[in-house]
């Protein structure tokens, strides 16, 4: 995908002053030995670490192992007061995760192995029960069934085969703009359904509501 031409605003986006307070408060509570704070931290970051590790490593089992190691390293660092900028906790956790993933890659260089991409259970660790996972899958299927076969093909070529809209346009015989519009609309329909589910099922421990 060509993302070089699009504006890429990530740094400093979403860094809200309220969030800085939340992270600093959490770091402080962990440092003071509050076990519930450690639990909140784990519940919030674990699915993110797993997601990142699976995407980078393509190995769900190793991703879970790494997520455990990352959380352990983060909690130890917080307990020992080694985090210099508590308000930037997400950056600290993602950096720790990245380091452990890179370490794993370095180990693999010495011992190459075949890894399987498990696309069947992509976000199971973000959901608390099998029932929620099943509901998520059902919603995805239902949402996919609601869109046209052509839109499903466009999504498949985009998300599974990684094709550029220009290539897809040639493949399906539509204009580039039409492909882009259809793709965005279809993804929005499906993701809206899923986000409704995640909002109701994912009890994010670090939300403002729980921390106030």
């Amino acid at each position, binding site marked *: 995908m060509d993302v070089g031409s699009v*504006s890429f605003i990530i740094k400093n986006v*979403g860094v809200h002053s309220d969030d800085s307070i939340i992270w600093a408060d959490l770091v402080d509570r962990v440092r003071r030995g509050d076990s519930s704070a450690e639990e909140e931290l784990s519940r919030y970051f674990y699915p993110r670490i797993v997601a990142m590790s699976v995407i980078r490593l393509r190995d769900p089992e190793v991703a879970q192992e790494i997520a455990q190691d990352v959380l352990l390293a983060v909690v130890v660092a917080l307990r020992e007061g080694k985090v210099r900028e508590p308000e930037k906790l997400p950056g600290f956790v993602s950096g720790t995760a990245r380091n452990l993933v890179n370490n794993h890659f370095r180990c693999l260089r010495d011992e190459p192995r075949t890894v399987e991409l498990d696309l069947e259970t992509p976000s199971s660790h973000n959901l608390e029960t099998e029932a929620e996972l099943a509901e998520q899958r059902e919603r995805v*299927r239902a949402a996919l069934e609601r869109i046209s076969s052509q839109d499903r093909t466009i999504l498949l070529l985009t998300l599974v085969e990684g094709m550029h809209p220009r290539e897809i346009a040639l493949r399906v015989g539509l204009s580039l703009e039409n492909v882009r519009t259809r793709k965005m609309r279809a993804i929005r329909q499906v993701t809206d359904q*899923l986000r409704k589910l995640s909002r109701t099922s994912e009890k994010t421990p670090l939300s403002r509501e729980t921390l106030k």
Partner: protein
Amino acid sequence: MLCALTNRQEVVEGYLSGSLAPEKRDSFEEHYFGCDECFATLQAHRALQAELSAGAAQIRAVSPRKPGFWRWSVAIATAAIVIVAAIGIRWSMKRSSTPTVPPTQAMQANPTGPALAELAHFDPPPYTPAVMRGVQDEATRKFSAAMKQYQQGRYDLAIPGLRQAAKLNPEDPGFIFFLGISQLLSGNTDEGVAALQQCIALGDTPYVEEAHYYLAKASLQKGDVTAAEKELQAVVQLKGSLLSKAQELLQVIQSRAPVAR
């Protein structure tokens, strides 16, 4: 968190496909570790990617053809119209070959097992526009325009026009029949069932046998084997062109283990 990330969708797609530059990838990871909105979007994309990957074979099977294919299709269909028109068979003029497309819901992993989903597959009833002399009424014009979408596999786009045509002329079984089929092919099973039942309610029309048959398919899509059997038995009783297909399907359904049914 208030997130103002622009092009979130493109960033997520680039991240999942591995096409982001390393520094951008790292930045996005750092961002979604603290952003509920972006993480939810990422997870939704991953779930969608997984489901698409699981159903890839079926999606490819119904993949739209390039325009060139359609040009040939139109040419062939046109030739067929001329031949059929010469023979003068009024109803058979409405059908010709269209691509094989299984129902959208066939990709659903039915709790009764994949075999049921397979049985729910069906080829869209082919349609060839009739050569009409004189001035067409509005309902027919709407129908003709909608069926152009249908012929190109854009069943969802055919629905509004078919609905209008059926509203203008609720006694035309062809309008209602193809509305029902388009609904089924667009994944609107309940609406499709309602239209096909309406078609059957019109009585002895050229579409009654097919309406029963595709109602059986719709019932299978919904996992209602009993209703499917009932519709297939209706097809058998009519002893029409779908007799053998209905009998075969009935046999397969009835041979399924009770637990699977």
